[in-house]
Each structure stands twice: as C-alpha cells, then as structure tokens.
C-alpha cells in the first residue's frame, strides 16, 4: 500500500509546507476539532477542576479540594452507585440477550428480516421517547400494575418509578429495550462471519448445539464481544436523557447518574469546580476501561 501511496504524491513543490497544500487546508477542521476542542477542552476542564471556580471559571488553585468535596457529596455517591449497578446489570443482560437473539436469528429462520426490524427499531428512537413510553407503561395507576390488579391479583405491586429501591429496574427495562437491538446486529454480523464448515464438523461429531455455541462459537467471536463491550460501556457512561425523561433523578435523588450530576452542577447549581471535578472523574473511568482495550488492539496489530 505505502509504495502506491507514495506514488500518489506525484510532483513535489520545493517547500515542504506548501506540498499538498489543498489537502492541508482541507484538514484544518480536523486539526481544530482534534486539538482545539477534544484535547484543548479536556485539558481546560481538568485544569479547572483543581480551582475554586463557582459561578465563573477562574484559576485560583485549591489542589484536590473539589475532589474531596465531591467524594463526600451524597448525591455524587448515589450517582456512582446507580451507574455501577445499572452498568453491570445492563452490560451482562445486553450482551446475553443480544447474543441470544442473534443466535436465534442465525438459525436460518423464516421472517428473519421482520424479526430483526422489530428488535432494532427502538434503537432509532430518542432516549427521551423511550423514557416517556416506559414511564407511561410503568405508571402504577394505569399501567402494568393496574392491569394485573384488574385481573384479580389485587395485592400485586409493581411501581418501580415511585420506589427508590426499584427505580433502577425501571431504568433497566427501558434501557435494555432500546439498547439490545444494536448489540444483536453486531453479534449477528459476527455469527455470519463463522465458517459453515465449523457447524458441519460439530454436527458430525454429534456435539449438541448449545455446547457448540459455548465451547466453539463464543471463543471464536472474541473480537466481536470486545467491540460490543466497548460500545455498551461507552453508552452506559452517557446515560442521561433516559433518566431525565423517566424519573428526573427521583424519587428524591435515588436515580441520579453522573452525567446528570455534572449537567445540574454546571448549569443549574452553578458550582463549576464541582462539575469539572465530576466530569474529570467520568473521564478517568472511561480511560480505565479504554486503555486495556486499546492496548489489546495494538498488540493484535503488532502480531
């Protein structure tokens, strides 16, 4: 490839900076966005998380004070705990359900397109739409709870959105509804990439189908699983609109999440330093997840 690329450079102007000038001009947006917004903005936020900025950003150093205060704020601790619970459950269930649905669709069934369309359409919707629909379905006076009570089970209780202990379950039901379709499509692409002969070989050996999946197919699909894992995780960290639409963080503060904490702290409570510290913590979390993945990718490329 690279020799061919070099051939593309064709006639070379004498001054290095002027070589390929149109191309460099066309790359200006990328440079501005990459350096100016992504790198510059991130550094700016990290730097200001060590200051006592309140209403306006200012460079008055206070060391780790904002972080100490953050980690002793109950609302933040609740946010972190919620994200951890939501994250772990949603990760496991999204992966399992996504793989399960993909495996079902991969069994050479009829109406595959119809089923795939049904499983994937929620992904096209806004989290606001998803949150509001499920808020209505889970409404205790009209929704599932009242329907089941109407069937004669008068003691039936299911109102997760009004119960601090169960509110995460409500969020999970909606989040899974929207998120599994995407993972299913990715898993399906992975399953389609597996050679027919492998299935034939396991059939000849008389290995049952479920065992083939666990012992042969899943280990072969490792890269697909890793991709799905990264996708789901980055989606979980962004969890914001769904909470705003479904519960507004309530009841009380029982469904607060970090992304919402940052937004509220920056724009409604006007406590910039706290907001910057919280968003820096989010960045650190993403980095902890991302760096091993990037390293793995890099090592595979080297081999």
């Amino acid at each position, binding site marked *: 490839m690279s020799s061919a*690329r070099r051939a*593309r450079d064709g006639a070379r102007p004498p001054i290095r900076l002027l*070589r*390929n000038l149109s*191309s460099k001009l066309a*790359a200006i*947006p*990328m440079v501005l966005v*990459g350096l*100016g*917004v*992504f790198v510059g903005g*991130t550094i700016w*936020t990290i730097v200001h998380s060590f200051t006592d900025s309140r209403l306006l950003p200012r460079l008055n150093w206070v060391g780790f004070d904002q972080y100490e205060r953050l980690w002793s704020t109950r609302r933040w601790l609740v946010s972190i705990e919620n994200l951890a619970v939501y994250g772990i459950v949603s990760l496991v269930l999204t992966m399992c359900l996504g793989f399960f649905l993909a495996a*079902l669709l991969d069994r*050479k*069934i009829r109406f595959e397109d119809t089923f*795939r*369309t049904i499983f994937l*359409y*929620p*992904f*096209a*919707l*806004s989290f*606001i*739409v*998803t949150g*509001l*629909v*499920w808020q*209505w*379905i889970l*409404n205790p006076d*009209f*929704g*599932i709870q*009242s*329907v089941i009570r*109407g069937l004669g089970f008068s003691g039936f209780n299911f109102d997760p959105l009004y119960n601090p202990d169960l509110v995460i379950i409500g969020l999970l039901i909606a989040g899974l*509804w929207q998120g599994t*379709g*995407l993972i299913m*499509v*990715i898993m399906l*692409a992975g399953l389609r990439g597996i050679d027919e002969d492998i299935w034939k070989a396991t059939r000849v050996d008389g290995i049952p189908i479920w065992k083939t999946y666990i012992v042969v197919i899943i280990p072969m699909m490792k890269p697909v699983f890793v*991709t799905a894992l990264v996708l789901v995780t980055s989606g979980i960290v*962004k969890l*914001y*609109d769904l909470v705003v*639409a479904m519960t*507004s963080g309530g009841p009380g503060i029982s469904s607060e999440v*970090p992304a919402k904490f*940052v*937004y509220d702290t*920056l724009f409604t409570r006007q406590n910039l330093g706290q907001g910057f510290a919280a*968003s820096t913590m*989010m*960045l650190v979390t993403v980095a902890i997840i*991302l760096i091993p993945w990037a390293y793995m990718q890099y090592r595979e490329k080297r081999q």
Partner: protein
Amino acid sequence: MTAVTPRGAKPQKALSPRNIMLYGALVIFSLYYLLPLYVMIVTSLKDMAEIRVGNIFSAPVEITFQPWVKAWSEACTGINCDGLSRGFWNSVRILIPSLIISVSVAALTGYVLACWRFKGSEVFFGILLLGAFIPYQVLLYPLVIILRELGLFGSLWGLVLVHTVFAMPINVLLFRNYFVALPEELFKAARVDGAGFWGIFFRIVIPMSLPIFVVSGIIQVTGIWNDFLFGVVYTRPENYPMTVQLNNIVNSVQGVKEYNVNMAATLLTGLVPLVVYFFSGKLFIRGIAAGAVKG
C-alpha cells in the same frame, strides 16, 4: 471425486419441537419490543375518560384524533402553548444545516486521510478517534466558552457547530475506510489527466461513494434529531429542539396530566427517525455495523 452426496438442506417438518421453541422464543421477545409502540398508538387515540376507566392495553372504543391535534398545536410547555409544532420546526432548522455541514466536513476529512496523507495527518486522525470516547460532560463547558467567543452561543448555528464537532470522529472513520477501498488506478489515471485535489474529489470520489454518504446521512439524521443534551445546553427556549419540548410538555408539573396528548406527542417525536429507519432498512444496519465494528 465421484461419490454422490445428498445436496441442499435437510427437509424439516414445520412443526418440529425445535421450531416451536425457536419461533416461540422469537415471538415472546417480539412482544416486549412491540408493546411500547402498541401502547403509544392506542393511548394516543383514546379520550381521557376512556383512559381513566380502561387499561393501557385495550384498543380504543372510539377513535379520536383530538390528542394528536392538541399535541401538535396546543400543548403547553410552561413557557408557551403552541404545542410541539414549534419544536418540530426548530428541529428541522437544526437538522438541515447540521446534516449538510457535518457530512461534508467528515467526507472531506476522510478524503484527505485516504488519498492525500501528509506528515502528521495520521496523528491528527488518532486524536480525533480518541475524541469519540471522551464523555460529552467533559467538553460541555469548554464548548460554551468557544461558542461565546465566536458569538454563537444560544443561536441555532452554535448548535450546528456542536453537532458537527461531535459527528466528526465516527463519520470521518466511515468515509476514510470507504475511500481507502476505492481502486487505486482511478486515482492515478485522474492524476495523469491533470485532475487535482478538488477535481478528483468532486468528479471521481463523490460520484462513486453515494452509499457511504447515505449511511453517514442516516447516522446523522437520527443522531441530531434524537439529541437532547446539546439542545438543552446550547439553545435558548425559543429554539429548543423537539426532544426538549417533548420532555417539557410531558414532564411539566402544571395542569392535569393528559396521557393521550403525551403519547401522541411522544409518537410524533419518534416518527422522523422511525420513518428514516423503515425506509433505509439494510443501509441503516450497515451504518451502525460499520460504525460499531470499526469504531
């Protein structure tokens, strides 16, 4: 090799236990995914009296379109009472320039990275890709400052710029990978014929890459239309996009809750991406798969 082997699939009975399990599982899961759509539709076609006495799963006894009319043109957000129509037109006004600019910038950048690399271009590309993983919350305030310096804060153009910035990583990746796969000979032949940077882009690359433009367009239409966070942060109430208006209508604390109007409004907001989804079919899946598998 003269051995005769049976060919084709093994004939299967339609009603084998295996099939019953398989289709049974698929149908049960389909119910979970279809239920909200069904509930939205039936709720939006009932009047409030019927909602109060009935249950959410029952079909409407008397179909009424009043909730739809009200959601579109009369529902109140606490600031004004002209329904979702205002938010819809705001979203359209945000969507069109955002779509054109973000796709154009991404396509051009992808073209640079695929065909006209220069010293350092790959480094910038790497930085751009890392940007895809930065939580939006980290960049919210820096962008407020950037927009304020540019005099765009609170205007539609500010939001257009924000959408363009956050669209870059994934879309540039998409375009670059597509352009790299174009045949090298075309490029050389064009160079021999004296076409330059722009000539090759407009006369050869773009006409050959319509599918990827469609894929990128689909990603952007759904992404921009469904955005809530940037709409809240970077626009003023008179410019709120549809998602923000919808949330304000449904979760407003004043007045009687009109569930049928709320569901009509929710459906209206979801219609645009749903229409895009149903009409783009395979391309939509290709778009997310391309974005996902390589992202």
